[in-house]
Each structure stands twice: as C-alpha cells, then as structure tokens.
C-alpha cells in the first residue's frame, strides 16, 4: 500500500503544482470543475488487476515511473520532417497541434475552416468571454469513478475544442494532433471536446504520436456529443513510441437520428488502453465503432468498449481486429447493453485476432446483455493464425509463401484501413502497418 500511496501522492503534488500555474487565469467554472475532479481523485485509487475492468492490464509498470509535467511550450524536439510524417495534407489548414500537452499555435492552422466552425484551444474559452464549453466539458467523462479521468480533469489546461455549427457539413477533416517530443520522461493530459450540433456533419482525426523514443505517458480524455441528426466520423490514431504509455478514454453521447462512426487504431506504446463508451439518448441512432491494433515485441494493448442501447430502433456495429506478433498481448472487452424497451435494436459485434507467433496472447471478452424483446444481436470473437488454405491459394497464383503471408496479414488490417475516408491517412497507415510488420510488400 505504501507504494500505491506514494504514487498517488506524486500525482496529487502535480495537481497542486498545476493549480498554482493556472491561478487567476481561468474562468470560475473551469477552476471549479478541476477542483471537483481533484477531490474525486483523492478519494479514488489507481486500478489494479484485482479490478474486473483492469483484470488483464497491469498499470503498475506505468505508475512506478516518474513522469514530469511540462508547463511551457518547447518545440526544440519537433523536427519539420518528423512532423510531416504525422500530419496529412488534407488537414493542413484545419489542424491543432499540441506538444507535450501544450498548445502549439505555431504548428496549428485553422484558416481553411469555414466561418462559424470552432476549432480552438480550450484555454482560449477558459479565459475568454465565449463560455461555450462550460456545459459540455466534463459532462460525459466520469471523474467521480474513474481515476485516470479524474486526474486528467483535475489537470485540464490546454485542449482541443471542436464545435460544428448547426446544419453545416464540413468537408475538410479536422486534425487534432497530440505530440510528445521531450528528452525526459513527461506526462501529458490531452483533453478533447467535440460537439456536432444538430444536423451537422464532420470528420475528426484525433492522433497521438511520439517524436522521440523517450518513455512518455499520455492520459487522454475525449468527450463527443453528437446532436440530433448530426453525423460524425471520428478516427483515433495512437502511434506513439513503443516505450510510451497511453491511457485514453472516449465518451460519446448520441442524440435522436445521429450517426457516429469511430475507428480506433492502436499501434504504439508499451502499454496502451482505450476505453470507448457510447450512450444512446434517443431513437434512430446509428453507431459504428471499429478498431485495429497491431502489437509486436512485448507491447500490451487493451480496448474496452461499451455501447448502451437504451432506446428503440437503433443500430450498432463493431469490428475490432488485432494482429499480434512476438510476445505481445491484447485485451478486448466489448459490452453491448440492450436495455428494457430498446425494441428493434440491431447490434453486431465481432473481435478478430490474428496471431503471427506462438507466444502472443489475446484475452477477448465480447459481452452482450439483452433485456429487450424483438432485437437482432450477434457477437463473437476469433483468435487464429493465417490459414494454410489461404497461403496455398496465393501460392497457386505464383506468389511466394513469404509474400503470401505478408499480403494476408496486410489484408487482415486492410479491411479496416480501407474504410478510412481520408486518402493520405489511409496511405500513410498502409505504409506504417507494413513497416511495423517488418515486411516490404509492393502495393499501390
């Protein structure tokens, strides 16, 4: 217990230090939210493998490390060339960049966005007259029960706020990029709020990348509100260094007739966890949550998702696919609740895993809880290797078995990558995936 207490005290001290730096800077509502979260954090403990939700993911190695939180912007670790590799041209004029948790105005550019679309640093709202985020920020992310969320909320400083105005369809993808680029072990608390107003339509790419191989910790929280009739495509891309730690939480609220599609890709980090919860607040909602994780070496990736079907006539589909090599480990826990009265719910869930080595392991738990009648639900999970029949099929067309394996592995991931609507992101991921699989395969 002494160890746990020490770890918590380190983070509490960080909260106090942070509060000092923000003294007098923020609007009272934000200060109050932080204080409430700090209080929650005091009453909570970091999860252990004794907690059901963290049974297979041990965060002890993360908590043992000492990370420093930076308060000043330092761009010395951001080389133009590396930056280019984690940005994409479609969002050149519609992106926000954060470095080590701090907003980097120099690297951000939102000039390409139509008037009325707000894509800005949270601090701007926190101290200015526009109090738009007040009602939404913290309304979904549960700082009262979730330790990491409490910590993130207690430390809200810079962050990304996206607001798509009523009835508008935004063509440019909006890119929110959170970089770590430090020569020491740092911790950052990325925070994102996305509000798609009634009948609007937009695409947001939220990405996390490391520009240095240093062991950093991102504790990220994203809140998404999809208002009636709105449609949001949300790509979440975690490609941090393999020494990084990443704990991410995404909470989504959907209103009447809205559509939310998420694709969460996890490639980096030594230990990464993404929790995605989607809550239905009305009828005729469509939810698509897909995921892809590729882990090698001794990486550990954990995806916990839940979709709460609380109203009739809603659809959800979920496909999470994983490729594991080396001694990597993956955890998938997907819950689908169909509450009483959620008639005619159509919910499909599938988790598929491809093991490239005999030492990689997967713990998968698709869960379906149905309390309503007249629903269509399916769920399942597979863990397997490349099929000999598939390899033979390709070989019978003249493709060597080595290339056949690479092509099949690539294809396994490609099924999800090809669903990405942004060309450069899609192509960039193709390359990243191939590199990651240590295979050079010629594809268009």
């Amino acid at each position, binding site marked *: 217990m002494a160890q746990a207490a020490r770890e918590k005290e380190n983070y509490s001290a960080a909260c106090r230090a942070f509060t000092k730096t923000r003294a007098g800077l923020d609007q009272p509502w934000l200060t109050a939210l932080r204080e409430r979260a700090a209080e929650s954090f005091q009453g909570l403990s970091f999860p252990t493998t004794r907690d059901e939700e963290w049974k297979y993911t041990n965060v002890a190695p993360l908590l043992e490390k000492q990370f420093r939180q930076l308060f000043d912007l330092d761009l010395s670790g951001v080389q133009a060339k590396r930056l280019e590799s984690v940005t994409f041209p479609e969002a050149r004029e519609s992106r926000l960049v954060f470095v080590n948790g701090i907003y980097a105005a120099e690297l951000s550019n939102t000039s390409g966005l139509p008037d009325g679309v707000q894509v800005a640093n949270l601090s701007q709202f926190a101290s200015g007259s526009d109090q738009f985020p007040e009602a939404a920020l913290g309304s979904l992310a549960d700082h009262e029960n979730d330790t990491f969320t409490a910590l993130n909320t207690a430390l809200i400083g810079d962050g990304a706020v996206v607001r798509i105005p009523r009835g508008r369809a935004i063509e440019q993808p909006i890119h929110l990029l959170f970089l770590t680029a430090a020569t020491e072990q740092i911790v950052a608390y990325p925070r994102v709020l996305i509000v798609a107003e009634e009948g609007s339509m937009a695409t947001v790419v939220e990405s996390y990348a490391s520009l240095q191989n240093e062991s950093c910790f991102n504790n990220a929280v994203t809140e998404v509100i999809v208002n009636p009739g709105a449609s949001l495509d949300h790509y979440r891309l975690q490609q941090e260094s393999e020494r990084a730690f990443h704990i991410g939480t995404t909470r989504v609220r959907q209103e009447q007739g809205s559509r939310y599609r998420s694709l969460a890709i996890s490639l980096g980090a030594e230990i990464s966890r993404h929790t995605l919860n989607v809550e239905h607040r009305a009828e005729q909602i469509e939810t698509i949550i897909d995921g892809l994780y590729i882990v090698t070496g001794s990486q550990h990736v954990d995806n916990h998702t839940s979709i709460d079907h609380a109203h009739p006539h809603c659809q959800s589909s979920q496909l999470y696919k994983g490729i594991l090599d080396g001694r990597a480990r993956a955890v998938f826990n997907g819950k689908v609740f169909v509450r009483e009265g959620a008639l005619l719910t159509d919910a499909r869930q599938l988790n598929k895993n491809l093991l490239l080595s005999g030492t990689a392991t997967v713990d998968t738990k698709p869960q379906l809880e149905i309390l309503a009648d007249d629903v269509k639900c399916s769920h399942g999970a597979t863990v397997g290797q490349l*099929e*000999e*029949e*598939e390899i*033979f*099929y*390709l*070989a*019978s*067309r*003249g*493709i*060597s*078995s080595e*290339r*056949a394996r690479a*092509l*099949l592995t*690539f*294809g*396994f*991931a*490609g*099924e*999800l*990558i*090809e669903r990405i609507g942004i060309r450069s992101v899609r192509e960039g991921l193709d390359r990243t995936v191939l590199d990651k699989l240590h295979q050079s395969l*010629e*594809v*268009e």
Partner: protein
Amino acid sequence: MLEIRNLHATIDGKEILKGLDLTIRAGEVHAIMGPNGSGKSTLAKVLAGHPSYEVTGGEVLYQGENLLELAPDERARSGVFLAFQYPIEIPGVSNANFLRMAYNEKAKHEGQEELDPLEFDDLLKEKMKIVEMDQSFINRAVNEGFSGGEKKRNEILQMAVLNPHLAVLDETDSGLDIDALRVVANGVNKLASKENAIILVTHYQRLLDYIQPDFVHVLYKGRIVKSGGKELALELETRGYDWIRTAVNAA
C-alpha cells in the same frame, strides 16, 4: 505437356490416388469424371502442390521436368494453374492488387516486363470481358462477398490473366446456374489454344455440353479405369457409374 505415371498420393495417411496414369499433350482438353470420393479433386490439388497431400509414389513430368519437385508458387510461375472448387476469400486485398502481383511474379519469372498499376489496369479490363465481369470487381477484395458464380468467374479471370500452359479446373461448374455456367464455359473456350492444355475435373456431363473435351477419363478408386472420347461422358450421363464399378470390382 504432362505425363503422370503410377501416381500414388495420401492425405492424413489415407491413400487416395493408387497408381494413376495420364498423358496430356498441348492443345488437348481432358475431362476427368468419376463418382464422389474417387480422387478427382485430390488429383487437381496434387498437381498444384497442396501441402496437405503427400505423394507416396510415381512421377509427374511437366514439360519434361519433375513437377513434384517444385513448390506450389514455382509451379504456378512455370504455367500450372488450378481453378479452385472453393475459391478463398481474401479480405483487405483488392482483386486488382492481387492479380497484378500474381501477373508480375510470372512476368518476372519469364523475363518479361512487369506492369505498373495503370498498365495492368488496361490488361485487366480486356481480360474481364472474357468472363463478362463488371469493372466494379476490380477494386473489391478478392472473392469477398462474391456469389458462387462470381467466385468461379474470378477463377477464370485469373486464368485469363496468368495465361497458363496447363489449367486444371476443379469442379468449376459446381454451384453455377445455367447462365453463369455458359459465361464460365465460354471464357474457358476463349482461353483454350493449341499451346495450352486443360483438365476439367467434373462430376456432371453438363459442363461438357459447353466445353468439348478431346478425351474423357473415368477416375475410380484412385486410378483411371476407363478412357474414351466425349461420347463416354454421354454414356456416363445415361448409365451412371455402377457399370464401371461392377467392371472394376470384378477385375
């Protein structure tokens, strides 16, 4: 082109082919018929080099060389093609990428020029006409979500792209309706030439209404027990296989 002598093959220790002899020359179309379990598909898979089958005796000479020494991909590059009875779905890999890769592997082997995506696209469009396939299939994942008929067409499209010397069509007619059968058979007829040879493995006579074989062989208990011209297929259609069984079992 192909000479099979006293071929024995097993799967999971069970002997399926028990001394099969067959000689095929360029320009010929051979039909292999026979009751279920006689070894027809085993022969097709052994020729393509399926790893689950073990050749325990005999030899197979292809263009004068020992075919059995070659790995499946080497066989394909040297011109052996197997149209699968149950084509495999490959999600995430587009038909175009897959076909171009296969084409270029063979081109490289033959010292021909490899094609870039644009050049290959032109070639593919031409070949797709042979099997009356819609252009939309180019960018779809290989066989994924294809109907039974579409999968078989895709097999013949691959044959058209790879232009094999020896094509083995394993029950290509199974699961096809009459329109799809006609399209697939027409495709095969367009691809047949004096330079190549085709083996049709089939259970039914109906395919042979569309593709005229030069020879018909009856495979039973792992051996060719009767050979003849196309009239043999008609005879099998009317009389069934019992008279063959009786004759073989009496011998």
